[in-house]
């Protein structure tokens, strides 16, 4: 029961999603896009208490890139600015060919973690990120080969069925680590009841990370902390600190959720503790 982990005061893993692949500096000038900017942001969020950085790559003008070389440049910059943070690459990519989706896994060294989108997600009015089971399986196979821990991104309740299906099809190392995502569109509608339903329906022993989009970021992170989960914050998912006020940085969002966790009696996991919790 996840609430037991709250009562026990288990450490909470804070993941910072620094840049994303959907919006860019047109949404907020505070969003890091270049390897140097992302590296500096990683150092700031690590100092603030994040132990995992979730990374996307971009071209020099901010547009999406899936090139291994761009991820390598970002990883190199992150390592230059951090002490021990866990690097997690995104393998997401709406309307991008499947072979491109594998390229973020091929840095040297590989990332310790990578996202694995569990099913379809609509974008705009005419696009769907398909995330077929065949792609999920092929990405997972390459993660296994490279020693990468998958972070199973659950965009909606149907994707919990997809997690169960993945566990039937393939062997996943324990603990299974999911990210439960709440927000508009294809995402699970952001209500407390849906949150409780989602965590009740996870496979036995699975851990969960909590991601609320936009104004739902802080309340859902708080619920994640209370119910024994882990949390993800950052400018990829939310560019505001409060209504009408842009967040100054990723670190500002991390600092706030760290204060909430500590006030509620859950210490923030160090990178070493994160590796132990996740079995990295």
């Amino acid at each position, binding site marked *: 029961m996840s609430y037991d982990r709250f009562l026990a005061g288990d450490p909470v893993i804070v993941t910072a999603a620094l840049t994303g*692949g*959907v*919006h*860019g*500096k*047109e*949404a907020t000038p505070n969003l890091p896009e270049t390897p140097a900017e992302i590296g500096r942001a990683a150092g700031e969020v690590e100092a603030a208490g994040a132990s995992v950085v979730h990374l996307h790559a*971009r071209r*020099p*003008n*901010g*547009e*999406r890139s899936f090139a291994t070389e761009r991820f390598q440049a970002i990883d190199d910059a992150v390592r230059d600015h951090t002490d021990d943070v866990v690097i997690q690459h995104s393998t997401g990519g*709406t*309307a*991008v*060919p499947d072979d*491109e989706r594998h390229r973020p896994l091929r840095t040297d060294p590989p990332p310790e973690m990578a996202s694995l989108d569990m099913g379809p997600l609509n*974008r*705009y*009015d*005419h*696009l769907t990120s398909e995330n077929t089971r065949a792609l999920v399986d092929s990405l997972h196979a390459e993660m296994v080969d490279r020693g990468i821990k998958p972070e199973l991104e659950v965009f909606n309740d149907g994707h919990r069925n997809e997690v169960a299906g993945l566990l039937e099809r393939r062997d996943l190392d324990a603990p299974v680590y999911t990210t439960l995502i709440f927000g508009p569109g294809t995402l699970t509608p952001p209500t407390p009841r849906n949150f409780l339903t989602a965590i009740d329906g996870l496979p036995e022993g699975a851990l969960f990370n909590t991601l609320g989009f936009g104004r739902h970021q802080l309340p859902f992170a708080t619920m994640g902390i209370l119910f024994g989960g882990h949390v993800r914050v950052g400018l990829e998912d939310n560019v505001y600190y409060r209504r009408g006020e842009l967040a100054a940085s990723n670190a500002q969002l991390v600092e706030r959720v760290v204060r909430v966790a500590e006030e509620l009696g859950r210490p923030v996991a160090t990178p070493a503790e994160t590796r132990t919790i996740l079995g990295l």
Partner: protein
Amino acid sequence: MTCPFLEYRDADGEMRFDTGRAYCTAASRFVQPMRADVCNDRYDLDHSRHCEIFLAHEEPAP
């Protein structure tokens, strides 16, 4: 062929960028980087099928 409404600009109003960024002249704003892939017809994307802004603004054939 890229979208006819696509331009690369480094400024618009108070917004300033170090490099040229995708700007939609139909919507009169910079677009998200993910949408810029649609503007540029990258991968399997086609602005004439996948962009609701283009579809709303295209001229009907004479």
